[in-house]
């Protein structure tokens, strides 16, 4: 019985025509499937590309916002520097000496508008203890030329600006990296550069420990060719030996022409 069933079934075979027709049928199906696959993968690729573009734009946008483009240095003896983004918001605050660190203790300035940050710093009790009658408060601004006026006006509008012996200086953004390389705030480094025009022996380390009024006093002495007793002559010292605008000093560096600076100190004096 078993053999008979087996033999009977054994006679049934697929003919070549059916096999070939099936192969052709599957060949066509395969081609359709592949093209369907390609069609279906295209939107996926497009979506992936869009996602990458959005991600890249997001990262670039974030980087753009987080890139410091302007610096405002606040120097008395404490040296503090604000790094600002395109929207003039504070990205970072750096103290360049222990006095500066003391002031920044407990202050939260990141993300604030620079004018608000300056006012907060100036209103702190620790800072006020440094703002004595003979102290000099110097704001040094480094930014792009098209943004300079805006920042200067902003700094000038701060309440502290009228209360103390205050100066505002603008300088090139390139000076910032040189200042940081030497471990100084922008303002103090700029003052050092001014002083070094007259005194080759002065070092950065010496300037680090000096207050702004002390540096300015030395500059004044060199400009006038006289030695002044700081304590005696402080009232007579022209505290604003720096030009408020300092436009003539754009591109200023160590190699700056001494004569020009000499002229600059004598001819552009302003009081606040």
């Amino acid at each position, binding site marked *: *019985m*078993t053999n*008979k*069933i*087996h*033999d*009977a*079934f*054994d*006679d*049934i*075979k*697929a003919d070549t025509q*059916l*096999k070939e*027709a*099936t*192969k052709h*049928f*599957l*060949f066509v*199906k*395969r081609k359709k*499937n592949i093209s369907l696959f390609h069609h279906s993968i295209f939107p996926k690729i497009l979506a992936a590309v869009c996602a990458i573009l959005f991600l890249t734009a997001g990262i670039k946008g974030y980087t753009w916002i987080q890139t410091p483009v302007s610096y405002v240095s606040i120097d008395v003896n404490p040296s503090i520097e604000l790094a600002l983004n395109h929207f003039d918001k504070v990205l970072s605050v750096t103290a360049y000496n222990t006095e500066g660190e003391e002031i920044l203790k407990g202050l939260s300035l990141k993300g604030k508008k620079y004018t608000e940050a300056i006012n907060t710093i100036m209103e702190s009790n620790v800072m006020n203890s440094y703002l004595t009658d003979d102290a000099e408060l110097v704001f040094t601004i480094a930014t792009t030329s098209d943004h300079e006026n805006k920042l200067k006006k902003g700094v000038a509008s701060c309440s502290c600006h009228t209360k103390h012996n205050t100066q505002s200086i603008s300088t090139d953004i390139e000076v910032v990296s040189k200042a940081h390389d030497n471990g100084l705030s922008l303002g103090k480094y700029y003052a050092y550069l001014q002083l070094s025009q007259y005194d080759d022996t002065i070092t950065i380390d010496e300037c680090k420990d000096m207050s702004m009024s002390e540096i300015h006093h030395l500059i004044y002495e060199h400009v006038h060719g006289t030695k002044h007793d700081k304590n005696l002559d402080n009232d007579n010292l022209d505290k604003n030996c720096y030009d408020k605008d300092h436009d003539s000093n754009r591109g200023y560096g160590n190699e700056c022409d001494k004569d020009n600076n000499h002229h600059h100190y004598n001819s552009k004096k302003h009081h606040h």
Partner: protein
Amino acid sequence: MRSEIEVNHAIEKYADMIQRICFYYLKNQSDTEDVFQNVFMKYMLHDKPFDNSEHEKAWLLRVAINACKDYLKSFFRCNAVSLDALHEIEAEVPENHREVLEAVLSLPDKYKDVIYLHYYEGYSAAEIGKILKKKKIPFIPFFPEGVKC
């Protein structure tokens, strides 16, 4: 998707087996062709690898049997004119085998799986249970290994 070479190889290797199952269940040459092609299309689209050729054969058997049963249940098949399968292959089947085939084809549907898988393919009751994924298979008096899996 399986490669063209792989599929063509399977067609050459299993075409007769699938043809027998289709013929056995459908008894109609034109229906056989449809199901035959569908079985190999499923094979082409089945991405999972087989453990060995036995696994592959068992998979094809189950797919072919299920495809035939599904086809029989379909609307188009129910309304189609049924032809006598034996008349279609009369020239190919010898006289003495024709009687056996007639007898086997006339068996109730519930025995068909077991008859074919055991008497032609030589599977045991346990193996048939695995292929068909059934715990019980129908009792057949002359089935040598019993019916329980």
